[in-house]
């Protein structure tokens, strides 16, 4: 199968859906001629014109709000938010408006829009351009949250998102835009709420989101050499969450680590870990461990930044201890 970059995969998904459905349009800063700073959207304006690939001023709350109104009236906007960190600017329109409109109207109005943005540290971009803020959005009922872990997922989830009748937030890892993966030429969609077992194993389950799937896979390789068989699972969407698949895996392996690049406290790892604890309790040989990003603003200095995110070695070390029956904490 051909291999394409995650960036290209996103571009293809949007182009295909825009061809298929005239009501789809995209708006954001420097999305047209510039094709975004990451060049993910290059070429779209040439095909679809500035009427459907719309450059906006630096007005995130404003164009997010416009997308909500457009979505309520028969359009299917894709909002391009240049950095995930800017989500703080649009929280009201996203969480008070988009997320709640369908419910508040008793099902009469709906808001089919996609917010595509990014996440991921270690790009030396410092505290306001490096955050992974998906947990915040996942906490708000009415929003769906997708976290593609490769070009394949990026394309399939984006297409599903565009066809979904709800506000969907997609977090792309900005360090993965150039990563290639096999992506079929033929059309495919990836349903929401269906986890993907990336690697089968029997001793421990490693649940990773976004780029942490790669971290988990690398950790699994390290562990395999030591005779520890790790299963790696990618939930693909955290809302809806394929709880059943995760529980099934953990019931089999009896141990689990949840790995996510958001801050650890009050984030994604706590939710997944506590669901596993709650629903697979009697199958667990050890507590479910969590590995999120450190609870610190992302530092600029490379000497510090690299310490803040989970690494394959760190995950392997934790897995090793869990499998040896040693507890991280004297639990």
């Amino acid at each position, binding site marked *: 199968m051909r291999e394409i970059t995650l960036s290209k995969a996103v571009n293809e998904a949007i182009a295909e859906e825009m061809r298929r459905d005239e009501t789809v349009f995209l708006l954001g800063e420097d999305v047209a001629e510039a094709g975004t700073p990451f060049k993910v959207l290059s070429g779209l304006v040439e095909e679809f014109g500035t009427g459907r690939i719309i450059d906006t001023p630096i007005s995130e709350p404003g164009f997010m709000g416009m997308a909500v109104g457009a979505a309520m009236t028969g359009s299917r906007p894709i909002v391009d938010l240049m950095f995930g960190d800017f989500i703080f600017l649009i929280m009201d329109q996203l969480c008070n408006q988009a997320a709640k409109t369908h419910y508040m*109207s008793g099902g009469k109005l709906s808001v089919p829009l996609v917010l595509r943005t990014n996440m991921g540290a270690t790009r030396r971009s410092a505290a306001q351009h490096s955050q992974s803020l998906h947990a915040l959005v996942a906490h708000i009922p009415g929003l769906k949250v997708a976290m593609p872990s490769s070009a394949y997922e990026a394309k399939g989830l984006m297409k599903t998102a565009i066809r979904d009748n709800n506000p969907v937030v997609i977090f792309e890892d900005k360090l993965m835009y150039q990563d290639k993966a096999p992506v079929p030429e033929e059309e495919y969609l990836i349903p929401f709420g269906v986890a993907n077992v990336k690697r089968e194993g029997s001793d421990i389950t490693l649940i990773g989101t976004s780029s942490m799937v790669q971290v988990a896979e690398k950790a699994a390789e390290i562990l395999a050499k030591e005779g520890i068989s790790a299963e790696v699972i990618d939930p693909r969407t955290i809302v809806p969450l394929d709880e059943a698949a995760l529980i099934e895996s953990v019931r089999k392996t009896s141990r689990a680590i949840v790995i996510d690049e958001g801050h650890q406290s009050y984030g994604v790892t706590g939710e997944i870990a506590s669901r596993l604890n709650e629903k697979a309790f009697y199958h667990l040989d050890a507590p479910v461990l969590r590995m999120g990003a450190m609870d610190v603003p992302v530092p600029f200095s490379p000497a510090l930044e690299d310490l803040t995110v989970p690494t394959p070695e760190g995950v392997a070390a934790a897995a090793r201890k869990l499998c040896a029956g040693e507890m991280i904490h004297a639990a």
Partner: protein
Amino acid sequence: MAAKAAKPKTNSEDYLRMYRQMVRIRAFEDNANQLYLSAKMPGLTHMYSGQEAVAVGICEALTASDKITSTHRGHGHCVAKGAEFREMFCELLGKEEGYCRGKGGSMHIADQSNGNLGANAIVGGSMGIATGAALTAKLQKTGDVTVCFFGDGATAQGLWYEVMNMAALMQLPVIYACENNGYSEYTKTAEIAAGSLPARAEAFGIESFTVDGQDVLAVNDLTQKLVARARKGEGPFFIELMTYRYHGHHVGDINREYYRAKDEEAQWKTERDPIVNFGKWLESEGLASSDELKSVQDEVHADAEAAVKYALEAKYPDGSEVDMHVYAA
């Protein structure tokens, strides 16, 4: 662009409908207030009484497929855009037959069938929504115009400036209608708004107008012209409508002399009432007799009472609805 135009409101039938719509809003509010005072209404609500000429003057210049966005003080917009009493009272009481199945209540009442995209409990929260609705109209060439209602207090929200800039750049068919009732909660507008409101819109190259919000014909005339121009792609526009709210900020805001003098209230009510004054004009022009007007009022009051009665007896949504409509299918 689909050919569309609201019928010009130049004959007595249209005038009488405007009169009736204003009376309907007042009657709706009087009943809602009563429901609150008699502890039959859950939560609280913000009365539109006094501002009727704004909602009616504007909405009578719109077609059913034109859109509006509304505010926390939204009953008037909802009635004026064509909603029914029954579904509205049911909504205010949290009943299943309400416009939003009781899930929205007063502050989120919407009536999508008549193009009312909903009240909003975030001040200024619908400014982006209105502008986006106009963007759909432009992209899909529907010919629809959107009116964004908001209060003077809402002009302090940065969102407005962001969307005005974009609406101006994209020449969107949206009309920003600021109902300046002189107060933002318990504060006089003058204390929270520096400079001039129309100048703020003009700074973005948006044509701006100020109109007497107690004069339904003046409001309607201006709006008809602007709607026609907006349909031709000459939007956006800004209108400041000078008006007054008769009640407190919300139904519970009873002792309000510390921020607003009783005399001031009395003066607006006796001299500037939009319904009374329009009624007088209709009579003086020979377009309606006082009996005719009286019978409009009686009919409306009877309607309202019947709707209240119906809503009080209507059933609440079933508990199983609580997690329905979180996500659309």
